[in-house]
Each structure stands twice: as C-alpha cells, then as structure tokens.
C-alpha cells in the first residue's frame, strides 16, 4: 500500500484533540499507512507552548498530540529556510490593501507550512484555519469578506496575488471534518453499532464547536450523505 503524506497545521490538531478525535490520526496511520507531518513550529504551538503555560487548560490536548508524535503517527520535520518563508509571507501580506495600507493577514507559521508543502512535495494539507485556506482556494472570496468586515473597498495587488497563487498552486486543503468523515466511511465509528452514523454526525458537530472552519450548512450536507 502506498504511503500517503499529509502536512498538518496546528489548527487541525487543536480541533481534533479538542473534540477528542485525535485517535482518527492513529486510525489512518495504522490502517492506511498515512504519514501525518508537521513542521517544528506546529509542534511548538500545539505541544511545547501549551505545556509551558501556567494555565493547565490546554495541557491534556498537548500531551495527546505529543503522544501521537512519540508513537510516530505524526512526524516532525525541520523548518524551511527563513528567507523563503519571509518572502512568501511578504507576498501574502501584500495582496490586500485598505486605505492605502497592506493588510497583514498571515504569519510565519502558516507560511512555513506552504513552503514545506513545496519543498517536501506534499500537496495535501490538513488545515482547519480559515484565512490561509481561502488564500489558497478563493482569494477573491476573502477580498469580499474583508470589504464586508471593514466597510471599505479592498484593493488587490495583482502582482502579489499572482505570485502567491503560483507558489501555492496544486495544494489541496482538507479539514478535520473531511478526515473524520472519511474515517466514518472506513468503519472508524463501527464500535457504536447501530448508532454508527449518529456518532459520526455528532463528531462532526463537535469539531465545529472545537473551532474547525465548517458551516452548519456543510454539516447538514454531511448528515444527508450519511443517510
């Protein structure tokens, strides 16, 4: 069976552990030899930092992710070179402009993932965060949203947009909801017996409440597909 690689960002790990669904990573790793990969910055954000904080509120989630790393269900890779990350981040942060100023929407963490995707030739991204996903898939939708939120016309720097779009071309994003739904189709919730689809539906809603960027309309679509 061919190994499939998936590059994960912190947001997807956060919502999966928040919804107690991190075992779905084990499921795909053990049964389908999927390799979940994270850059060091994601390990820091999802594991090291929460464990270092005074508040214990996110410690258990961090330990669950650390456990997945220790079991090698998630692999940590070194960060890409700083210059490449800075360059792509600069491009991304020069796409949209309001009142003559560029809108700095993305940070190093998100950009690093995109650079690594290219460097490691892993086009599949697991990402629950919304902004970066829109930048990859639908930058004009993001423009319209920014106009609605800031009540002002947003200018698009076409050169920066084209440059950024070329760099992320071919990348495909799925969310933790798609991960869990596919797991459902492969029997992940079979232990619930007759309540299998009910459990899967509940899990998807739990992911939304844990912060996965999925809408209620999409959840209704999922429910219809399960019937």
């Amino acid at each position, binding site marked *: 069976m061919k190994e499939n690689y998936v590059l994960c960002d912190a947001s997807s790990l956060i919502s999966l552990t928040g919804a107690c669904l991190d075992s779905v990573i084990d499921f795909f790793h053990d049964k389908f030899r999927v390799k979940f990969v994270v850059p060091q910055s994601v390990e820091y954000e999802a594991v090291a930092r929460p464990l270092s904080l005074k508040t214990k509120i996110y410690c258990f989630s961090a330990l669950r992710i650390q456990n997945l790393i220790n079991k090698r269900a998630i692999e940590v890779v070194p960060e890409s070179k700083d210059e490449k990350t800075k360059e792509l981040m600069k491009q991304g942060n020069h796409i949209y402009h309001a009142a003559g100023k560029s809108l700095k929407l993305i940070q190093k963490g998100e950009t690093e993932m995109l650079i690594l995707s290219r460097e490691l030739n892993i086009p599949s991204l697991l990402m629950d965060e919304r902004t970066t996903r829109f930048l990859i898939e639908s930058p004009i939708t993001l423009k319209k949203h920014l106009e609605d939120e800031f*009540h002002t016309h947003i200018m698009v720097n076409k050169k920066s947009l084209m440059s950024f779009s070329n760099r992320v071309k071919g990348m495909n994003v799925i969310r933790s909801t798609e991960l869990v739904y596919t797991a459902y189709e492969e029997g992940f919730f079979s232990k619930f017996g007759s309540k299998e689809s009910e459990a899967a539906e509940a899990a998807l809603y739990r992911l939304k409440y844990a912060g996965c960027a999925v809408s209620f309309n999409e959840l209704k679509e999922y429910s219809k597909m399960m019937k």
Partner: protein
Amino acid sequence: MLELSKASKLICDAFKERDQRKMRRANDTIMTLSASRFSKEMYELAVYSYVLSKVLSKPRFMSKKYSATHKEIQAILNSMVRDAKKRDKKAFRVAVKGLRTSIQTLESRDSRYIKTMIEKGRLKTAATLYAQGLSLSTASKLTGVESQEIMDYAGKTRMFDRVTGGKSLASRIDYARKMLLGGV
C-alpha cells in the same frame, strides 16, 4: 495617533455618559480600525472599550460604593485623550496600565469567574480579529491570546457560517478519499 485620539474620545465620552450602547458602538468602530491599521495601542482600546461596556452593563459595578473608582477611570480616560492628541505614546501606555489596575480593583471586590473581564476582553478582541479575516496565528500573535482559546471561542460563534467559499464539500471529500485511501 489621530485615530487613537478619536478612539480614546469615543470611549471617554461613552463612559462619561454612562452609556453602555455608546460604548459598544465605540468598540465596533475601534475593532474595524484595529484589524486594518493594527497597533498595540489600538488593540488595548479595543479590549478596554469592550471591558468598559461590560462594566457599564452590570449594576453591581455601577453602584455608589464604586464611585471613587469610576472617577479614577474617568480621569484616566481623559488623560488618554490628551496623551493621544499630544502624540505621547509613552504616557498613553502608562494611562492604559492605570486603566487596567482600576478595572482589576473594581472586579476583585466582586469576582465571580475564573476568567477576568480583561481576559475575556482580550479573547473577544482576538476572536473578532480572526473573524474579520486575519489568520488564527496573526490574531494570536497580535493579541497574545493562545490559538487554542481563539479556536475554542470561534467554534461557538457563527463566524464560519457568515462567509462560505472555496471548494465544494463534495470535491473536498472526494480529494480526502483519494489522499487518505488511494494515494495522490
């Protein structure tokens, strides 16, 4: 600093009039400015306009026994307006610290939650920046609020229902199947 001065005045006037709705409107205006022209000072004003709207909305904080603290807060807000007009960022930041202390004093006398009003204000502001279109990491870095907290909060709002776009669900699931099961 001009925007800072206007924003400070909105908060100052709303508190002077003890007008909670006016304070919420001030917060809305400041939030719109914060995301597009972010500065630490503007962020603090976004947080404190929210916090002060909460203070104004709670009868227990507006009772006469806290009138000395109310006067203190008003004096600080007046000085913030003056400092912003004079473009004195250092004095402005000192005033913000004073505002924090006054609000903490107010709340500590009748504390009911683990999270303080200021912590809730920071979280709400961070989540609003994320909802407006900044990435999760950007909202976290600018505000100092952890990504986990922002996601936890955002998940209980309708922010992901307000804007939809990108790929269709069917194509996303189709790709997920190929990616996870069949190899891409």
